[in-house]
């Protein structure tokens, strides 16, 4: 990734100040995310649910009774 791309990524994430004052830390964060993204096996089942699954809060389910 070119420096201008890394800068664009940082600015898109709202990290203009960090890019200006702590560029090495942002660069390291970009590299770290690339490693983490590749660090685990993606589920192959399209219907695999995340944990925790979405549930209505207790109060909402109680109100519907």
């Amino acid at each position: 990734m070119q420096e201008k791309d890394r800068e664009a990524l940082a600015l898109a994430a709202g990290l203009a100040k960090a890019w200006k004052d702590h560029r090495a830390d942002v660069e390291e964060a970009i590299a770290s995310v690339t490693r983490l993204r590749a660090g685990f096996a993606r589920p192959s089942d399209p219907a695999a649910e995340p944990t925790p699954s979405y549930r209505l809060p207790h109060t909402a389910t109680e109100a519907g009774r």
Partner: protein
Amino acid sequence: MTAPHTLSLAEAAALIAARRLSPVELLADCLARIEAVEPRLNAFIRLLAGEAMEQARAAEAEIARNGPRGPLHGIPVGLKDIIDLAGHPTTCHSKLQLDRVATEDAAVVQRLREAGAVFPGKLATHEFAIGGPCFDLPFPPARNPWNPAHHPGGSSSGSGAAVAARMLPAALGTDTGGSVRHPASHCGLVGLKPTYGLVSRRGVFPLAFTLDHVGPMTRTVRDNALLLGAMAGPDPLDPGSAMRGPEDYTRDLHKGLKGLRIGFVRHFHETDTPASPEVAAALEEAARLLAAEGAEVRSITLPPLADFAAVNRIILCTEAAAVHERWLRERPGDYAQLTRRRLLPGMLISGTDYVQAQRRRTSLVAAVEAAFREVDLLLCASSMDPASRIDDPEEVERTYSRQARTPFNVTGHPAVSIMCGISRAEGLPLGMQLVAPAFAEALLYRAAAAYERAAPWRQMAPPL
């Protein structure tokens, strides 16, 4: 009589119940110990000696009239400084939070206050419970009582240092990627990450909502069980509360290991993240001792440690970035450099990656659940190395992530770290983990207590 500051929580509680020790005497001796050793350890961010003495006097008077409310009555308990104590700042060890005074007690503090506990101070942490030991913060990092040149683990670093150094009999920590069990391992303590939702998180500064746990840190298994009994319970105001009542977690401590099947997750430390020879040897010796005490110990396979670690990191960083977003954008220079470097990745992880990590989490939980259909408990490494020197940032960075604690933040199962050896080179404690099915804390304590009785480590103390 034995110096009160050296007593375990259970020993002190028994003496208080027998009117042979008053909470005032106990606290006064703990405060004297704090005065003597704190300058070398930096465990405290804020010492609340006067207020704690008022609490101890009130406890003394009530116990004289009516007897103790329970085993926590008059017992000093330290609080990691991300846990709210009404009327005092919760600094999170950060410049960004120096002036944030808590208006209410955290739910877990409310419970302990009702049980009669005394609160002598707020304890050091890694900034916002993430990162590592830093020297560019308003407070110095806590140090390891076994050797102050080394770190005590973290992020509940002050809790670990204070309890190991006999400044306090017990403290609370929090655990999102291992932060109760890490200092417990390096300080020779018992540190429990309870089942997710068993202890309320309300009033605790969040790091990552779906991974955060509050846990007890003590010098003995019985103390840990007693403290958890006062901490656990339903909280309708914590959306993650499991809404389960507390139990008597000491009820099975005497039962021993006979008949229990323990799955030893050897691949975590043998091939996934190879442990130092001393740690590997200590784990094998612990397995041998557990078997000698009557457990059936067999090897068991879980998904690779790297999968758990990456999933934990993506979820933790993303949820933490949601908490810290405004500060990371507007005041990035007000964090310690290490904290900033730990938090920034969360601003750059895509929504897709976060959901993929949560979907992988489902299968990781299922894999651990499947293991518990074959065995009653798991045994595995905690840290793969002894604590490094605190002034060696490269070694701190290298060793902090070499651990097997994050799997059980991802899955939510209860896990306890207990001392299982001592490194010959540095004289520092080594730790191991036992892990149980959800809400089986009593079973976990049963096995940990049996190991504690059989092993020699309980008798050891830091050479302060």
